[in-house]
């Protein structure tokens, strides 16, 4: 009696969508490899069409994520297939290809400050600011999900900012001040 999903994906639509996907990848690759500009936008359009085909094949909930997964894997296979692999003659070693990059965060104190800002402080900032902003969303499951998604995205964005800001103190000060303000608002709301 128990059913599973795969049989609910129409194989003909899926096959057609996959064919479109391959042509689309081929056009984009052609544009990249041989500078055939004309194929670039049709390529992306075909990929969009193929995802539409996957949606028809299996619905928005199942077909679309399946199509996106297939697309990612097909492109990676395509890249590996067309790539330049090592041979006996070309097996060169010795890391001479890239120029030396300076500018890594060598100062330990700056690194510590960045990490402290990126994790504990950004977490506090994301939580408190989200809780204030989420008050605008209707209560219940919608608010709960909004809070969880927003905390994740805001925290991630703040972590990137903390680790890449030219002056590490800047994000730390902004996040600390905003967190304090948000906590104050939350306490007033109680």
């Amino acid at each position, binding site marked *: 009696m128990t059913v599973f999903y795969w049989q609910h994906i129409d194989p003909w639509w899926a096959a057609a969508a996959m064919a479109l996907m391959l042509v689309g990848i081929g056009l984009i690759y052609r544009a990249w490899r041989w500078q055939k500009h004309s194929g670039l936008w049709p390529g992306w359009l075909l990929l969009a069409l193929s995802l539409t085909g996957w949606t028809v094949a299996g619905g928005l909930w199942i077909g679309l994520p399946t199509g996106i997964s297939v697309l990612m894997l097909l492109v990676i296979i395509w890249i590996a297939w067309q790539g330049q692999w090592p041979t006996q003659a070309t097996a060169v070693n010795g890391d001479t290809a890239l120029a030396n990059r300076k500018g890594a965060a060598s100062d330990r104190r700056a690194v510590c400050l960045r990490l402290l800002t990126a994790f504990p402080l950004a977490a506090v900032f994301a939580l408190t600011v989200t809780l204030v902003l989420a008050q605008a969303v209707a209560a219940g499951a919608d608010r709960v999900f909004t809070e969880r998604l927003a905390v994740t995205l805001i925290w991630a964005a703040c*972590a990137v900012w903390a680790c890449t800001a030219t002056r590490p103190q800047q994000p730390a000060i902004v996040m600390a001040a905003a967190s304090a303000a948000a906590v104050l608002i939350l306490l007033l709301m109680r």
Partner: protein
Amino acid sequence: MAVLSKPDAKPDARFFRQMLSGHSLLGLTAAFLMYVICVSGTLAVFYKEFWRWEQATATVETMEVNGNRIERAVQNALDELGTTPDSIGIDMPTSDWPRMAISYGDQRRHVALDGSLEGDVQRPWMSFLARLHFALNLPLELGVVIVGIFGVLLTALVVSGFLAHPGILRDAFAWRLHRSRQLQQTDLHNRLSVWAAPFHLLIAITGAILGLAGAISLVSALLLPADESAPAAAEEPASLQRSEAQPLPDFDAIWANFTTRFPDDGVFYLTLTDPMTASQRVELSAIKPDRLYWSQGYQYAADGSFLGAVGGAQASVGGQMQSSLYRLHFGHFGGMPVKILFLLLGATTCVVTATGVNIWLAKRRQRKLPADTIDRLWQVSLWGTLALIPFSAALSLAMAIPPVPVFWAGMLLMALVAWKSGTPAQWAAYLKLASALATFAVPLVHSVRFGSAAWQGGGLVINLLWLALALAWSLFYLLTVDRNIPRLSAGDVAGH
């Protein structure tokens, strides 16, 4: 080949350098644990098949369900328990776990075709692997939150990775594995991370939300006034509380009603609340074939009449999205083909993590900075993880040795030895070989223990997976090992 980016565009070099530096800092902060989470998560996509594999001969595998089987199982559980619990749960057969198991008190037992109770459901190795993935084998309250933080970190890494690479479109298909090691690793890292970015973001964001949900709710409860719209727990009327014993629900009528009313839905769990009381109810949790949310609940009264649907489509948009995170994260929304896709895409996450650190090590070498100790430890982390996971499975199957100490003590021991001895190339070579041998050993041990059952049903899927991995590691070992590396000697181990 620069058609995808404007050739005259001059990006701000300082911006990209700063982004790259931040990306490296974020990645190096957590590389080892991130890698362990990725590897264990990639395998855990097949967790239901692993459950069957671990107890290959424990019970009959059949999709046959009827009211009589359910009723007898519930009656047997109540007889054994001696008291009436608040609820009894039954795992129903599904296509990826075609067994029935009943949970009562702190027991979980398989159910035979006639409803009699069989042995306990035991899955020590899969529990280890799952907990390694979602809690790093730490206490759940702490471990789940830590892994959630890794989800945030992975999200930040994907975003900063895109911002750090000005030539990401120019090099869209570049795959120059015949060039220097640094360029090989850079191409692998960048191509896989760009083209699999939707998958990486999906896994990272859903993982972060699942991991941090409890902590966020706790902080929300502490800082916000109580949610007045939340329904208060209904108090049972005194007349219904523990009145005289009632007969069990009419499972035949419930099952017949359900299969007629919802023929496409797949039930995976049955809950009987307040059994044998006047308020007893049955809820069937089902997978809807065209939806991602975890379950659609259908409630039935004891006499078999349908009371209504709960959760699933009845939930708000936010509730449906929250409930859909699990199937999206696990890759459980398209049967075996999507599981295989998630296995392969999960492998790209592992490769991206590994190559990220490899690039950083190659750059250190280029700058003449010391890298050998870190490189040795990194090789132990990479290949030690791939060797110890199957090694723990083989020991668990063969001698019931708990996998948690095998994995973590083994990792610690290797790290201590690698701290002072050998070279990175030696550690990589020996551990690649050890990974291949340990992975080959698992289906071998499984076959010895379970005989022909090892190559049927869930056992077949998992043993084929082990064999495929073992072949992959063997090929990787044969293709990449440097035949001229000296052997690890006693002197190496005594002190480098």
